């Protein structure tokens, strides 16, 4: 604990550095030519180029900027963003990249045997480690670009099936200009023996990052996947618009964890990442998808990891901790669409707000007509620390049959004065006391994370607390 305290005292957003590196960046703005160029640089198959252009056409035509979220920010100028930036690969830049990831605590040449990492730097994937071990099991884990070239048929079959063309403004934009992300395929009956992970890093000043991740787990397979995110400290806002699609075929299981620690802006709310993310999974019969997320970064977060429970007996889970401080705003939650019979879903959302921040839960639980005997349990807890922060809950429930059950619990707490008093009385200072209480508040989510990351998540929460408490 002593070590921890020392660490806490030295707090700074330690991922806020910038790597000066030679790169090829496309001019600002978005148009057909830019998209064609991206596709050309990536050496994509023709169908992909067509697909991108189709999405772009739709985006231009139905360009309705979404305003329904409980977020306040300046409208984004989409012509003031560069949509692609790639490092010029040579020995010198390679060294710099290695240094960067080492500094971020995820060295590329790591010797951990229980994890395979895909490193995404600005618009491209730099490297994917431990491909060989995975090959033995027939598991495909690589950047989505490589997949587009090597496993074109597989990608074509699934991409855009969970998040369709007309889904939303940002997913549409992403489908037109996405540059990189991860692709994963787990064959029939294979339980992936190691953790798969992607580390996203935004470095360039003017780019937007548009990641696209597609995970397919074939019948009876299992995978645990984790993404981590960081970006340098900057005064301007940067856009990150991602689309993640999960497909769990019959009897398959997917666990998808996120530790989101983008730069969140300074004390006055200047700078930070705009994080607009569409994440959705499709469950076939007896399949299970679990979304776990720890959200501490970004100045704006707009994110609703959801499950479509299409197959009978399928299960969807969403567990989230979101911590906001300074002027951060977060609008997050989940959609659980029950279509099959006997489907189950759990939503557990824990929001912690500090300073002047705004923390919103928004959820939808829907039972279709044929989704008989299905169940949902929702729990949304908000913890307020201080007098200027706020917490909101917008749950929607739609049931189209009479045999399904929904439970919804919701609490808003102020920090427990009695617990604080007790800890202080025992000679524990406010920082430690708070971290004990917050940990208790969020343990239901943290303990579900893969072990290594649960420690990381705990530390991250503590570090973020320090900034404001004490």
């Amino acid at each position, binding site marked *: 604990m002593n070590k921890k305290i020392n660490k806490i005292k030295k707090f700074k957003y330690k991922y806020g550095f910038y790597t000066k590196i030679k790169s090829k960046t496309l001019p600002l703005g978005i148009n057909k030519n830019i998209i064609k160029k991206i596709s050309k640089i990536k050496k994509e198959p023709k169908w992909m180029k067509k697909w991108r252009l189709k999405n772009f056409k739709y985006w231009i035509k139905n360009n309705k900027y979404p305003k329904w979220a409980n977020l306040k920010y300046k409208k984004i100028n989409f012509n003031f963003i560069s949509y692609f930036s790639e490092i010029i690969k040579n020995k010198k830049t390679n060294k710099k990249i290695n240094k960067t990831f080492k500094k971020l605590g995820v060295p590329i040449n790591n010797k951990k045997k229980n994890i395979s990492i895909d490193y995404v730097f600005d618009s491209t994937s730099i490297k994917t480690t431990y491909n060989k071990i995975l090959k033995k099991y027939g598991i495909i884990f690589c950047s989505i670009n490589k997949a587009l070239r090597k496993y074109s048929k597989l990608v074509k079959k699934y991409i855009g099936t969970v998040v369709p063309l007309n889904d939303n403004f940002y997913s549409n934009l992403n489908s037109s200009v996405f540059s990189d992300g991860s692709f994963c395929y787990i064959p029939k009956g294979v339980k992936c023996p190691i953790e798969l992970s992607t580390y996203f890093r935004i470095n360039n000043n003017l780019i937007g990052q548009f990641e696209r991740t597609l995970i397919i787990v074939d019948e009876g397979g299992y995978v645990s996947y984790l993404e981590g995110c960081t970006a340098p400290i900057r005064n301007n806002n940067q856009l990150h618009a991602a689309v993640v699609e999960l497909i769990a075929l019959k009897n398959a299981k997917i666990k998808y964890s996120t530790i989101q620690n983008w730069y969140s802006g300074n004390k006055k709310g200047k700078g930070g990442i705009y994080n607009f993310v569409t994440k959705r999974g499709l469950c076939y019969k007896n399949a299970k998808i679990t979304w776990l997320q720890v959200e501490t970064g970004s100045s704006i977060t707009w994110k609703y990891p959801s499950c479509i429970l299409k197959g009978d007996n399928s299960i969807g889970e969403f567990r989230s901790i979101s911590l906001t401080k300074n002027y951060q705003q977060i609008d997050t939650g989940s959609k659980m669409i029950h279509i099959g019979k006997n489907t189950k879903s759990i939503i557990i959302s824990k929001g912690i707000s500090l300073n002047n921040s705004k923390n919103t839960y928004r959820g939808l639980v829907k039972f279709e007509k044929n989704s008989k005997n299905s169940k949902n349990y929702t729990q949304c807890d908000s913890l307020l620390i201080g007098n200027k922060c706020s917490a909101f809950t917008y749950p929607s429930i739609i049931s189209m049959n009479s045999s399904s059950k929904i439970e919804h619990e919701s609490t808003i707490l102020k920090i427990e004065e009695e617990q604080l008093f007790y800890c202080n009385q025992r*000679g524990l200072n406010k920082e430690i006391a708070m971290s004990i209480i917050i940990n208790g508040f969020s343990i239901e989510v943290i303990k579900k994370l893969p072990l290594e990351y649960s420690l990381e998540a705990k530390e991250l929460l503590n570090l973020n607390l320090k900034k404001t408490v004490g």
Partner: protein
Amino acid sequence: MLIIKNLYVKIKNNLIIKKLNLKINKGEIHILMGPNGSGKSSLSYTITRKVNYNIYKGKIKFNNKLINKLNTYEVSKLGIFLSFQYPIEIYGITMFNFLKNLFKKNKNKYIKYIFKLCNKLDINKKYLNRYFNYGFSGGEKKKNEILQMLILKPKFSILDEIDSGLDIDSLKIIFNNIKYYIKKKKDSSFLIITHNTNIINYIKPNFIHILYNGKIIKTGNLHLLNKINKYGYKNIINF
């Protein structure tokens, strides 16, 4: 050691302690009694500087240091310990991990030390892996308080109804440990809040005070206890 002079305490405009004077020297054991709602717990919260227990007038000094304006944490660091009447539960942190935080140095030795104290207090080690006080019985919670006292080694301890809700065996164990602590640390002082006049069977106090309506109305020795037993508070108050 502890000197309270002419103390007035307010919670939101309600005067809950009025003109209270108390002096506790090194190595002394004081017992504080009084009918329900007389302000016993309020006094302990005031000494430990709980928020909202505002000192309106008067002084509290500990080892010649004025503690009126200190906060709970700072008071605790001076060596003042409060054993709570109703110890709180904290979900999400195990008892063991909580206790670990109480050690200052020599962290390598704490595991053995905690085990030793558990044996002494007859606490099942299983509890160490449970969330702090979560689902503990009343007796286990009180033992947990004394366990923490033994770890923190305070100069001055307030025990707020440490004896309420305990069976005879637990009571004996707890007081044996308190006595052991006094023996080892002779200059430590105690303020024991209780309703139980049989407490003298377990521990020998130097003084007994009766608090009524926010004020100490009587101070005496063991004879006072006999009087309380015989006549009840009411008659003493009316004297």
